[in-house]
């Protein structure tokens, strides 16, 4: 096929847009690694921050992020997987309930993160926490009805639910129908088929979804501003009702509230780098597992 000038022009223009994006990405990563890497040291990763937020390390923020993410996973993932199993294995695609659930999942995926923050505050903290308090205690000082790592995790569990559902469903769909048919034909019940045949075969894909959700949840800041993140808390949370430090929130706080922004820059870049490494390594893990499980399913 001959290429004319116009062909080259179109290829050039579309290629240029790709180049712009890749360049911006490279600049962003380059800046963060260039300024951030020299800051990273064993002390930076394992010590608590000094009172000026600039000296010392960011260990409580790392710990808080991981702890919160873990709680979020425990709360959200089982629900997400159950929903995907229901949609893919039980509900008939034409059933009204499946349609409504799908619509809800799609919509949930598009709800702005700050609205999740309002939801966490209005529902978990004021309604659920407040109700627990009024049932258990007479004292007007809230025990449960205040920002904490528990409520932040639950809020993020709702936020990441669609990611888990969508990726799990995709994983379930890759399991060949013949396997299910064979299992059912041998007299297994539908649940036995799901439990013994479908889930083990979709394991890799489901894990991918879980990791993607974790990576998404670990980086979200807007929902936790009111739900439990603390500016400065050089101690690790030991109780579900404690507030906690968070890497993403720490970046925001350092960039806007440290007394000397220029002096804070190295710490800031270092914190950003740690946050990025955390989310990227999770993403990378997800990509690897996905590739492997796809290879395993191929005949």
């Amino acid at each position: 096929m001959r290429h004319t000038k116009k062909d080259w022009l179109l290829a050039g223009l579309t290629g240029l847009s790709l180049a712009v994006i890749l360049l911006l990405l490279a600049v962003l990563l380059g800046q963060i690694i260039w300024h951030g890497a020299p800051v990273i040291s064993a002390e930076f990763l394992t010590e608590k921050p000094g009172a000026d937020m600039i000296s010392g390390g960011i260990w409580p923020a790392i710990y808080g992020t991981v702890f919160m993410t873990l709680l979020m996973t425990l709360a959200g993932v089982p629900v997400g997987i159950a929903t995907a199993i229901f949609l893919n294995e039980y509900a008939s695609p034409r059933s009204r309930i499946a349609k409504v659930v799908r619509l809800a999942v799609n919509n949930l995926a598009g709800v702005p993160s700050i609205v999740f923050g309002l939801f966490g505050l209005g529902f978990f903290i004021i309604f659920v926490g407040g109700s627990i308090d009024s049932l258990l205690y007479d004292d007007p000082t809230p025990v449960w009805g205040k920002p904490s790592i528990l409520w932040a995790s639950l809020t993020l569990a709702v936020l990441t639910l669609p990611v888990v559902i969508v990726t799990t469903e995709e994983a379930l769909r890759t399991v060949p129908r013949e396997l299910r048919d064979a299992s059912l034909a041998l007299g297994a019940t539908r649940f036995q088929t799901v439990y013994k045949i479908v889930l083990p075969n979709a394991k890799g894909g489901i894990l991918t979804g879980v990791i993607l959700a974790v990576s998404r949840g670990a980086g979200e800041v807007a929902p936790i501003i009111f739900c439990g993140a603390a500016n400065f808390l050089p101690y690790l949370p030991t109780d579900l009702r404690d507030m906690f430090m968070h890497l993403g929130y720490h970046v925001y706080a350092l960039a806007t509230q440290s007394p000397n922004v220029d002096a804070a820059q190295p710490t800031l870049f270092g914190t950003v780098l740690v946050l990025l490494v955390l989310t990227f390594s999770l993403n990378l893990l997800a990509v690897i597992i996905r590739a492997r499980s796809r290879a395993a399913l191929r005949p």
Partner: protein
Amino acid sequence: MTEQVLDAGDGRAPAVNSRRRTTLRPRRAKSKLASSFQTPLWHRVAERTIAVLALTAIAAIALIFVFIAREAVPMFWEVEFAEEVELRDLFLAKEWKGYDEPVFIWQPVGEPAKFNVVPLFVGSLKVTFLAMLMSVPLGIGCAMFIALYAPRAVREIVKPAIELLAGIPSVVLGFFALMVLASWAQAAFGFHFRLNAVVAAIGLALTIVPVIFTIAEDAIQSVPQTLTEAALALGARKYQVALRVVLPAALPGIAAGVVLGFGRAIGETMIVLMASGNAAIMEVFDFTTSVRTVTATIAAELGEVAQGDPHWRVLFLLGVMLFGVTFVLNIVGDLAIRRLQKKLTAES
């Protein structure tokens, strides 16, 4: 009917998937699933649990709406609210003391407090529009390049790179826009405001491009090859095929991507909070001014007001309105994708 769950949330999973699923399951499978007498009890319990848990997403959407609205609606009857704020001042211009003409003002602290939400929505729409102006051509351009021109090796590198971009937390992009982009942009364009709508929009565009790219690329890939081959066989050049056959055929999918990207942009918080300058200026056409968006206003102010205060109610009202806007956008995007799939399956 194709099985499809739209993924607006993270832009990672392919959103248009034209694979069809035909099921061989018996018609009554659902009602019979737990009835067989040899099934152990815990199987039945587990199945019930799964069915109940599957309703969580529906419950979540409903609870989000109800519990945000619950904090906002008392404004319609509370005396405390009426004493401080007139409802129509939330939306209409008013000639406040000290001003020569009716104005739209967001100054929620002071005597009297001025809660006009119009400048905030103007700000949100302005920065969103700008971000779309940048990310739509970029996203579609990237998708066309990858689908039509790029050699396999490039594709293998670019797709993970864009997934990487999608995986960057928005606070990091906000930080990048605030610390790096803002200074560069001012040096390059001599902006009056260092932090302005353009800088925030560049940051936003970086989150939207992956959304649009992913959907557009899927839409282009799913254009039936018979169409392109027929066009080529008729003697069309490649660019003609690209622009007149592939692009129009993929348009509904691309449109869905644009709608979802728009919803994503208008709801983004951390980037605009950090990089837009947050001045509630009532200025529609000058894109180099600072803007204060709905999302940044909620994030910056909600922590500072007491529960039940009029200011608190107005901020939750903003949340309800934001939820409403994105809800509608999601449904529109969803419908567009469904229509696309129907059309494609009918053609092939």
